[in-house]
Structure formats: structure tokens, C-alpha cells
């Protein structure tokens, strides 16, 4: 009985794996097709950065995109900390790029929803990216998450949530998780006022090696053209 069950499961798995293998290229091409709808966009929203050592306010920002690979984030007049990996928010580029080997990595669940895992490996050794794992909603043909390991900047993750602009395949929210290096000012340089609360205030359980930027978009202007000046 037990033996039978095991062999059944094994068999079923085989079928699913086969089915995956069958459809992964198709899924990728469908995702690419959906992306191709977008020539450019201008998205307004806010950027909220959470890094343990950074206490900076959420800030209004505008993101500009122009196919195939131009992306920039502009903030208002104030001072802003724009995550450098922002360029990597351009997951489109990654997907569209044909210089990657696409490997089916099975399935997973995100918020109860079944997703397909795709691993992308660069063909070229010199590529900054070592490996990227993309989580794709096979029904909506949307990228929900990606995890990319780079040579220089460690691993970063992107998590996309969709809403109003789901038809365009544009997220309402992107959470960008990146590695941060420890920030340490030399003691004595700042002559700080010690109010005696430092010890108790040191938050426990905060992961100091990870930072997060949360971009929430309230409005997209799609395919209306974006001037070149925004990418300088």
C-alpha cells in the first residue's frame, strides 16, 4: 500500500515536471508579450526607505521607464536616498534579455497562490548577475517576486503587488530588499548628546544587514512618451 502510494506520488510529480518543462518557455514568452505592451511610463508615488541606521522620511517620487532598459527615479526637491539597485527594479530587462538560460525551478506559493519559479542564469561569465530567481503568477502572467544574486552587491529581492494597473502588468507597490553594509561613524567625531537611552533603544531583532525600499505608486501614465532628460 505504502509502496503504491509512493510510486503514485512519484509518477504525479513526473507528470507535473513534464508539464512545467513543456510550458516554461511558453510562460516566459507570454510574460514578455505582456511586457511588450509597455513602451514607456511615468509613475508617481512615494518611496519609503527602511534601513536600520537611516531615519529618513517617506518621500514623493516619480519613476520613469522607457523600453527597453531605461529606468530612473526622481524625487522632489528635498534630499533623497535613492537605492542604487533601483536600476535592478527593471526586472523587465532581465526577462526580455535573451542572454540568459531559463531553467524551470518548479513551483512555490506566495500568499496562497501557486507560482512558477524560474531561474535565470547568464550565458556570459562577465555578467554582474550570478543568478536570478523569478516568481511568476502563471494565470495573470505577472512577476510577483524575484531574487537576484550579484557579484558586487550581494542579493536583492523584489516583491510586486498588483492592483489598479494589473492589466498593464504594472505593480502598485514594489518592495525592494537589498543588502546593506554596517554603518559606523568613528566615535568622538560627532560629540553626541547621550541621553542615556541608547542602550534600551537599541532594537533587538532588527536585521541590520538588510534594507528595504517600498515604492507605492498611485498613478501611471503609460505609453504617452517620456522625455530623455529624465534619464540623465
Amino acid at each position, binding site marked *: 500500500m505504502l509502496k503504491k502510494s509512493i510510486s503514485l506520488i512519484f509518477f504525479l510529480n513526473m507528470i507535473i515536471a513534464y508539464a512545467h518543462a513543456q510550458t516554461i518557455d511558453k510562460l516566459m514568452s507570454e510574460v514578455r508579450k505582456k511586457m511588450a505592451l509597455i513602451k514607456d511610463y511615468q509613475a508617481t508615488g512615494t518611496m*519609503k526607505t*527602511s*534601513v*536600520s*541606521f*537611516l*531615519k*529618513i*522620511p*517617506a518621500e514623493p517620487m516619480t519613476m520613469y521607464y522607457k523600453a527597453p532598459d531605461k529606468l530612473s527615479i526622481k524625487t522632489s*526637491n*528635498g*534630499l*533623497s*536616498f*535613492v*537605492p*542604487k*539597485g*533601483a536600476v535592478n527594479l527593471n526586472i523587465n530587462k532581465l526577462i526580455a534579455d535573451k542572454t540568459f538560460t531559463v531553467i524551470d525551478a518548479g513551483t512555490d506559493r506566495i500568499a496562497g497562490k501557486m507560482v512558477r519559479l524560474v531561474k535565470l542564469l547568464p550565458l556570459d561569465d562577465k555578467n554582474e548577475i550570478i543568478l536570478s530567481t523569478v516568481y511568476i503568477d502563471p494565470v495573470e502572467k505577472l512577476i510577483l517576486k524575484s531574487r537576484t544574486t550579484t557579484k558586487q*552587491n550581494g542579493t536583492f529581492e523584489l516583491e510586486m503587488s498588483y492592483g489598479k494597473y494589473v492589466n498593464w502588468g504594472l505593480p502598485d507597490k514594489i518592495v525592494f530588499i*537589498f*543588502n*546593506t*553594509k554596517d*554603518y*559606523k*561613524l568613528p*566615535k*568622538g*567625531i*560627532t*560629540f*553626541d*548628546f*547621550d*541621553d*542615556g*537611552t*541608547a*542602550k534600551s*533603544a*537599541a532594537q533587538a531583532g532588527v536585521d541590520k544587514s538588510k*534594507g528595504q525600499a517600498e515604492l507605492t505608486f498611485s498613478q501611471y501614465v503609460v505609453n504617452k512618451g517620456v522625455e530623455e532628460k529624465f534619464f540623465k
Partner: protein
Amino acid sequence: MWSLLQIELYKISRRPRTYIAFAAIAAIVLIFQVAFKADGQSYMNLMLQNVQDNFEIDRNKAINGYFMCYIILNTLLVQVPILVALVAGDAISGEANMGTLRLMLCKPISRTQVLMVKFLASFIFTIILLLWMAFMALFLSMLIFGTNDMLIFRVKGDESQILQITADDILWRYIAAFLYAAVALTVIAALSILLSVFAENSIGPIVATVCIVIFFTIVSNINVPVIDRNVKPWLFTSYLVGWKGFFYIGTNADGQPLKGSLENWESIRNSLNILIAHIIVFLGIAIVVFKRKDILS
């Protein structure tokens, strides 16, 4: 009393050494401004360190008038006690040295009055010095560097932090900080006057004040837990930098700064109370000693 205060202020205003303080402040501020205008980027790079690996930051915007003022005050407020001592330390002993103290004290004025007037004059000098600093370090910097959001680089316990305060949330903090600095420097004035009561030359109390401030500051910066816990709270110099508390902006649970908030108003208030207590104690001792003193100079 008012007429005596006028006399004191007149004497201070006519003394060349008074202007050393103003010239020194102007010189230090101008050097800062020129240096940062020329190469503020290097300083920013030093402070931002590897933050720049993760973030794109417009360093030109970061070096603005508000930031400059903070950097200047950071350095200057460590030195200003010397300038306050220069005037307050001379208050009684300088007169003793010139032989005018005995002439003053055989006028129909009580010694308490003389001492209070000396203290008030030193206080007013301190305020004017701070106004001058505000003009040079804040307003002139705002003119030269413009205004923008401000970054505060801070070491809190074992952690280093970068705080960002938006441009529209800064000016009141400076006003509060200058008021706090006024109280802090008044402690120095009161201490100098106290030491001045004991001396018959002006160099002694000035040097003694400066030595006490330097010694206490060094001790309170040793950063050994035993000292941090047991000694530091008792040194008034630990509270001199409390003006910075107004720039430690409060944050919500997400670490987002809250406009118009302070991280720890309680501690600023406590520090203020401690400083004011020091003023009262120093001045009280000075009055008692001065009243009992035989004027032999």
C-alpha cells in the same frame, strides 16, 4: 540695578578683549564656510561612507546652510565656553586686578547686587555672542549654501545613525537649540564668575574654567561603561551638547522621522533642569563667598 547693568555692559563693550570672541567666531565660521564651499564633498563622503554603495545621494543638496550650521555649531560650541570664560572669568578678578573692585565696593551697592550685575552682564554677552553665531553660522550659511533637508550623523550608543529632517522642520529646532546653548553657556558664565570671586587676576579663573571644561569633557568622553554610568551624569559638561537633542527627530515604529517631533524631550528637559540647577548653585556659592570675602586687592 539697571544703571549698574548699563555700566557693566559699557565696560564690557569698551574692552578690546570682548571683540576677540566675536572675531574668533567669525574667523572659525568663515573658515568652515570657505572649506566646505571648496571641498564639502570629501566631508560628506567621509560621513556617508559605504551608504553611498547602496544609495544615490545628491551631496550638493546635502551640504546646505542648515547642515553647515550644525557642523559649525558642533565644533564651535565646544570652543565657545572659552570665549564666555574670557569675559565672565574677568568679571570680579579683573576688577580686583585693576584696583577698581575696592572702589566699586565702597560705593553704596550691595555685593550681591555687584555679583548679580556681573552675572547678568556676562549672560547678556553670552546671548549676543550666540546671536552673532546664529547670524554667522546659520543665516550666512543659508545665504551661501541655500537650504534643503538636513542630515544628522549621529552615534547613539553602539549604533551610528543618519537622520533626515525636512527643510520645513528645521528652523524651530535651531531656535530651540540656541536657547538651550544659551542656558548651557550661562553655566560656564556662572562657573567663571564663581572662580573669579576667588582670584585677583583675570587669567586664573579663565584658565581654570577652560581646564575644568576640558577635563570634564575628556572624562565624559572616555566611553567606559563604569564612567558612563557613575561619573558622566555628575559632570555638567555632559549636558552642554544637549542642544543636539533638538535635532534628534522622533520616529514612528517604521523608523520614519515624524515632523515636528523630538526623540527624547524628557531627557532634554532633564538636562536643562540640571544646567539651571548648576547656574543656581554656582551663583549661590559665588554670592556667599563674595559677601564674606575680605577685599584685600
